[in-house]
């Protein structure tokens, strides 16, 4: 079975549309619709070449990760026909229908049912039933429509199919074509000994003999089915409408954490949903910075948020669902069985973020830039810092103003900082200074016309140490006279 393309709001069929992905030398065609394929566009070729063939080609970028996730969901959806399903590559599903086809009235009727259901989802599918994974793969892609192959018919039904149906990589296919082996039947007819000798060191992807054995059923290729993840949710059905969910929350949290503990998981998100009697639904979401299953902690995150729920005429159903599940193990970090310190820290950050908003809790990290305001970046408190090792050579102030404050120069001197200036309505006399340290604008980021800065460490008569800078030079052609700013304070 093969998912050709997902159709949401599909473009009209008479326009050639292709999906592109990034290749080694620019974008290449990922998939093409029927019109585009009729125009001679082949997947795998470069988009610029295909534009030359077909100027009215419309190109959109493929969402490969999204397609893969959708296919994973489809694997679980296909459990309606048989219990063993698995994803096959990026564009196929394998269903082990052994013993399940009679429930649908035979194999042919089952294929029709599958195609109907999939087309109701908006999917074009090519289906085949065969005794082995390899044979089904080849028949679905190169065989007739809804092909059915019995256990003893593999040689006849697959012999005429092209050799590309053997699931080999491109260099091996090219080699086989050069050897004159164009069909699977031709490969089957080659003596086994010569194939073994020729491909003695090749891997599975490049070994026609192994692939042939898999196709014929001589080598086992079992279907290892994936398990559907259980939805972890706790709910409270109330006998009559209430207006305040607070009394029910500890019990819900306990219930949820029990379920999480049984599956060995922790949650990063919690979704509280209340269903009102008038049919309306309200949500409250909280997030944690590390997976957790501590009911008291989860309960505390909702502390001030429940007031925002508009109860209306009351609600009679409360559900608490865990999202973003992650594996979690109880760890003992200390020999004497002490508490887990990291966990306490993550819980602290969760509490602070839940109360004051995630923007209020940040962690500054150093970045590689000479401009002081760009040398620091704010990241989320528990995010991993990108490993930009910065070595600070120059002395930097302990405090920085978010916005540098302009000073009024009372007594300028030709070089060095002003001898006297007024800042925050106070006159400061410069007793000693160090500098200048010239920091040029970053031309690859700044607007043209940004002026350079000369930084001075300045100490006034009382010992206050300021970081002062002059923006621009005299007659540098970027504005009038240079201006002076206070940017930071030294200890």
């Amino acid at each position, binding site marked *: 079975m093969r998912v050709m393309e997902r159709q949401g709001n599909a473009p009209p069929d008479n326009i050639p549309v292709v999906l592109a992905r990034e290749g080694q030398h620019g974008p290449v065609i990922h998939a093409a619709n029927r019109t585009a394929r009729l125009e001679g566009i082949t997947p795998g070729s470069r988009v610029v070449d295909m534009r030359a063939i077909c100027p009215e080609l419309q190109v959109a970028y493929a969402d490969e990760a999204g397609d893969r996730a959708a296919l994973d969901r489809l694997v679980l959806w296909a459990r309606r026909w048989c219990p063993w399903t698995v994803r096959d590559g990026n564009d196929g599903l394998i269903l082990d229908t052994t013993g399940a086809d009679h429930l649908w009235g035979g194999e042919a009727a089952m294929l029709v049912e599958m195609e109907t259901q999939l087309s109701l989802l908006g999917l074009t599918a090519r289906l085949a039933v065969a005794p082995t994974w390899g044979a089904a793969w080849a028949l679905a892609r190169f065989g007739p429509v809804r092909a059915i192959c019995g256990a003893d018919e593999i040689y006849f039904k697959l012999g005429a199919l092209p050799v590309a149906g053997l699931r080999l990589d491109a260099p091996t296919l090219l080699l086989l074509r050069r050897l004159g082996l164009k069909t699977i039947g031709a490969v089957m007819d080659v003596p086994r000994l010569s194939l073994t000798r020729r491909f003695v060191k090749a891997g599975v992807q490049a070994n026609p003999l192994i692939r042939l054995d898999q196709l014929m059923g001589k080598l086992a290729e079992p279907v290892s089915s994936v398990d559907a993840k259980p939805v972890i949710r706790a709910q409270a059905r109330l006998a009559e409408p209430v207006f305040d969910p607070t009394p029910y929350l500890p019990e819900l949290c306990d219930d949820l954490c029990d379920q999480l503990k049984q599956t060995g998981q922790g949650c990063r998100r919690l979704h509280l949903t209340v269903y009102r009697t008038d049919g309306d639904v309200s949500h409250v979401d909280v997030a944690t910075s590390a997976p957790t299953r501590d009911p008291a902690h989860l309960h505390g995150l909702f502390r001030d948020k429940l007031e925002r729920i508009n109860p209306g005429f009351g609600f009679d159903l409360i559900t608490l669902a865990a999202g973003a599940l992650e594996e979690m193990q109880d760890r003992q970090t200390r020999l004497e069985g002490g*508490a887990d*310190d*990291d966990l*306490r*820290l993550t*819980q*602290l*950050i969760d*509490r*602070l973020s839940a*109360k*004051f908003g995630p923007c*209020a*809790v*940040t*962690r*500054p*990290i*150093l970045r590689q830039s000479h401009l*002081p305001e760009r*040398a*620091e970046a*704010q990241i989320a*408190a528990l995010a991993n810092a990108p490993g930009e090792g910065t070595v*600070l050579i120059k*002395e*930097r*102030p*302990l*405090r*920085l*103003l*978010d916005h540098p404050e302009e000073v009024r120069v009372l007594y300028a001197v030709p070089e060095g900082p002003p001898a006297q200036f007024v800042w*925050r309505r106070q006159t400061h006399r410069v*007793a*000693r*200074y*160090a500098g200048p340290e010239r920091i040029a604008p970053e031309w690859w980021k700044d607007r043209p016309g940004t002026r350079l800065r000369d930084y001075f*460490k300045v*100490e006034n008569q*009382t*010992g*206050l*140490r*300021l970081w002062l800078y002059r923006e621009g030079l005299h007659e540098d052609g970027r504005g009038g006279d240079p201006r002076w700013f206070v940017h*930071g*304070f*030294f*200890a």
Partner: protein
Amino acid sequence: MSCVTPLRLHKGLEGQGPRAAPIAHTLSEAFPNHPADASAVGFALSRLPRGTAPVLWVQDRLSRKEAGRPALAGMRADRPVIMVGLSRAVDVLWAMEDGLRCRSLGAVIGEIWGDPPCLDFTATKRLALRAEAGDVPCWLIRRAASPDLSAARERWRVASIPSAPHPHDPQAPGAPRWALDLFRARHTRPGQWVASYDRATDRVDLAAPVRDRAVDARDGTAGERTAG
């Protein structure tokens, strides 16, 4: 020097040597004499125990606008800083108290502007008890504030004074020097010091201030002035 040395020991090693176990970390207050003076912050940072435990740094909005934000480039970069920027003093106290429950923090530093009514004796007492229970050093930096009733175990007035001479450049400021005034302390004797801070080794050297001799009745008379 005696009041600084015990706090320098690593937390886990305290009380293991022949030296008596020092007092637990507690709440200290620092009052800079000028709002833009970073000396109080530098002094508080120099008093923190060494290590790479993260520091929770809570600021209210006015402190950030008037005195800037702590710049990572100016600190010793080995300890991560978790910044919490809030607007009200009540929230700052709440966040500090919540942070003091977390023993894995290296320190909790709060900055509050002025004398908000919520920062009373009870609030500081709560902070002090929490800090002592969790053995996490807690510093409250209060700008433009009057040192009224408080339960802080150590209360410092910190001011910048002209720095030490630069070893290579006579017109440049050298190592920073601070005038420290411990005007209330529970575990040590109050006193006044002049501290000079060595940035390379992150070390504070305290010295008693050199006082001028009291002015004598005969000093500055006309005869001596002409003779000198």
